[in-house]
């Protein structure tokens, strides 16, 4: 078990190095940050001086090696746009992104599961037809459009919810949370729906399909023959056996939720890491972009690891196979 975790962590480091390398080779094409820093009035001498000061005149692999050397010590340098430590900028924005992703993922999972099970069990009810139609919309509409539509309806026309931002937040140490104020909770609703809608419909469709598959198997028929209640058959036997693919997809999608929060955060002016990244791209702020990409890669890798470990917990067969294999 420990060896397995260590092996996965070693792979994680390789993945992140690769991400960093690709990112750095691309940064040469995003433009020259020095021009933005110094403005249009700068003299060529000034530009050259700052370029050299920042080490931007060196080839990208040298810049990359330096970046890795510093990153290993937890040092990501200074943002060129804000002239502040990159690590500080991320720490400030991390709570916003994680809270939004957490709510969106929970929403997607709970609503997706419920709707998936319902539509599988009551295949012909009108509510099922309605939910399937809605889920089709959820899969096909782009995120920014959903966000803008929600803003239009709930903020502009109805005036129930705020159109942007995070509301009031309460600081607990360095973590700023929106869960403890009424305006913070209200502000979470629209962005988390926007962010989680795609995943919700995905989970719903997946659960439904798996559930229909499982309900046709012999052991379900046998369970019914044993005279078990519907409840025990559906939730004790059928649902449990649909969970393995659902966990895989949910896990991977959680990474996607955090990474694709970029769009939702931009639409809702959500002060998280995605918004920081988008602004860094506009400015060609290399340290922030590099740190963001590595951080997202880290999230993906860690989530995958957790998913792998969850398999063990959910599916006893894996444990047995492994036990046999090692003997």
């Amino acid at each position, binding site marked *: 078990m420990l060896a397995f975790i260590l092996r996965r962590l070693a792979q994680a480091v390789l993945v992140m190095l690769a991400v960093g390398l690709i990112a750095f080779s691309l940064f040469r*094409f*995003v*433009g*020259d940050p020095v*021009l*933005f*820093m*110094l*403005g*249009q*009035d*700068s*003299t*060529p*001498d000034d530009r050259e*001086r*700052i370029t050299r*000061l*920042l080490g931007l005149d060196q080839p990208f692999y040298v810049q990359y090696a330096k970046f890795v050397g510093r990153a290993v010590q937890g*040092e990501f340098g*200074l943002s*060129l*746009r*804000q*002239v*502040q*430590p990159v690590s*500080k*900028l991320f720490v*400030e*924005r991390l709570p916003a992104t994680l809270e939004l992703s957490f709510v969106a993922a929970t929403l997607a999972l709970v609503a997706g599961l419920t709707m998936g099970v319902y539509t599988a069990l009551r295949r012909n009810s009108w509510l099922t037809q309605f939910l399937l139609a809605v889920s089709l919309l959820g899969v096909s509409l782009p995120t920014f459009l959903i966000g*803008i539509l929600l*803003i*239009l309806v709930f*903020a*502009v026309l109805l*005036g129930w919810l*705020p*159109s*942007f*931002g*995070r509301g*009031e*937040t*309460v*600081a607990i140490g360095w973590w700023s949370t929106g869960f403890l*104020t009424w305006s913070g909770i209200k502000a979470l609703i629209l962005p988390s729906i926007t962010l989680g809608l795609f995943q919700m419909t995905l989970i719903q469709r997946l659960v439904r399909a798996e559930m229909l598959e499982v309900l046709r198997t012999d052991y379900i028929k046998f369970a019914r023959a044993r005279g078990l209640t519907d409840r025990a058959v559906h939730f004790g036997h059928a649902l449990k056996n649909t969970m393995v693919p659902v966990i895989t997809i949910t896990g991977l999608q959680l990474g996607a939720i955090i990474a694709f929060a970029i769009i939702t955060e*931009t*639409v*809702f*002016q959500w*002060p998280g890491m995605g*918004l*920081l990244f*988008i*602004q860094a791209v*506009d*400015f*060609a702020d290399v340290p922030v972009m590099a740190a963001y990409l590595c951080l997202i890669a880290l999230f993906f890798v860690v989530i995958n690891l957790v998913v792998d470990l969850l398999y063990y917990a959910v599916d006893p067969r894996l444990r047995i196979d492994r036990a046999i294999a090692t003997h």
Partner: protein
Amino acid sequence: MKPRHLLAAALIAFAATTHAATLRWGAQNDILTLDPHSQNHATTSSILQHTYEGLTRYTKTYAIEPALATSWQQISATELRFTLRKGVKFHDGSPFTADDVVFSYGRIMQPQGTMQVYVGSVKEVKKVDDHTVDFVLSGPNPVLLRNIADFRIMSKAWSVKHKSENVQNYVAKEESYASRNTNGTGPYILKTWEPDKRVVFAANPDWWDKREGNVTEIVYTPIKADATRIAALLSGDVDMVTDLPPQDVTRLRGEAKLKVLDGHEVRTIFIGMDQHSGELKYSSVKGKNPFKDVRVRKALNLAVDREAIRRVTMRGLSIPAAIMVAPGVHGHSKDIDQAHALDAGGAKKLLAEAGYGSGFEFGLDCPNNRYVNDEEICQALVGMWARIGLKAKLNAQPMATFIQKIQKFDHDAYMLGWGVVNFDANYTLQSLVRTKTTGADGSFNLGRISDARIDALVDAIKTELDVKKRDAMLREGLVATRDNYYYVPLHHQLRPWAMKKNVTAVHNAVDRHESRYTRVD
């Protein structure tokens, strides 16, 4: 400060003054730092001016008036003596003296900052007594008083106490205290800055001047996405938005709860042409450069239907231009800024005279995320020039890559917009028309225009202190640029603001909303 305390502070402020009001102001960008000497960034300057002041400041009509200095006099052509305002206190209660001016000069000049341009020709600042300083210049500078409006004064004692004597360095590990805290003399005290969320100010009760408006609290919110910013205004989450997407302006005008405040920006959008290379890089004409021929440049000018661009592409939000500076800039005058009407026939004839009767092909570089409808304007130009047989090959790119390309002179023709931060036309002439040397001379003369007469004018204007003579030379420079068709000026951009009906604000041509003028009833 926690939100709860803020609310309490706002309530106390409300109780104290009868007309207290909060202004919730939204715009696209967040500020970069709270350090007034660090970043030459438009939004940052426009926010920080509420807290930090200079010796001079602009009036509503962009004239210069005393701020932290009460008066000044020329001792010699290169020496200026400022009498400082007495009784002014920084927000922490410490008094403002000559030491702070000397200190701030040393600080803004530090190479890691990007604001030195505002004290450009100042060689030294000398303390005479506690309330008098002398500025020693490297040469006569008629726009000094304008430039130093953006040279903002910090407290020496406070900076020393918080180890912020130095502007944040890009390679330093420690963050400077002054980039996250303020202590100015201005009309508003900065309470909090939560990046990407809001900047909150409260009125400074001990300010030396009187606020015209009644705004006692400002909540500035950056909202990056255009649609969200407008939605926030429509839903009442903000009171005022100072940068509107042009396609939404008509709709906002029809909104009963809102009003649109029209105003122009001192920014002129134009096309520049390579007038230096022996042969254009992307053209069908080989062995010579057609843009060196004034008739070709005039033809490009005559073929542009500026009225159509105003009406269709800009939806009414532009003023067709003939000269390279916008109304509001010192040197601009309506009589020399009468835009050419469309004259395709005349343009064709000129091309034929120049020997290009069958037209030719050339490259046109455009930004696509910098100016209002930049790419659409270029597309319109391609169509207009096609009518006289010229085939422009459009290459629209994001500003970050576009600007690199054109600064390497890798272009035939390009679109650019030029704003005038100090409201003086020589800024444009010097940057765009004067022969390129080092420094600010010809810094954005990317077509490498070289005209000995204009060079002489620009250099004379730089040091001419006689206003009348200087104005005459500015006019000559602008007209010479126009009549030699060194550029194809398109239009001056308009920048309307939108706000709730109960808000009264004074428009500003460089997007610097000053809350001290603003009323919320």
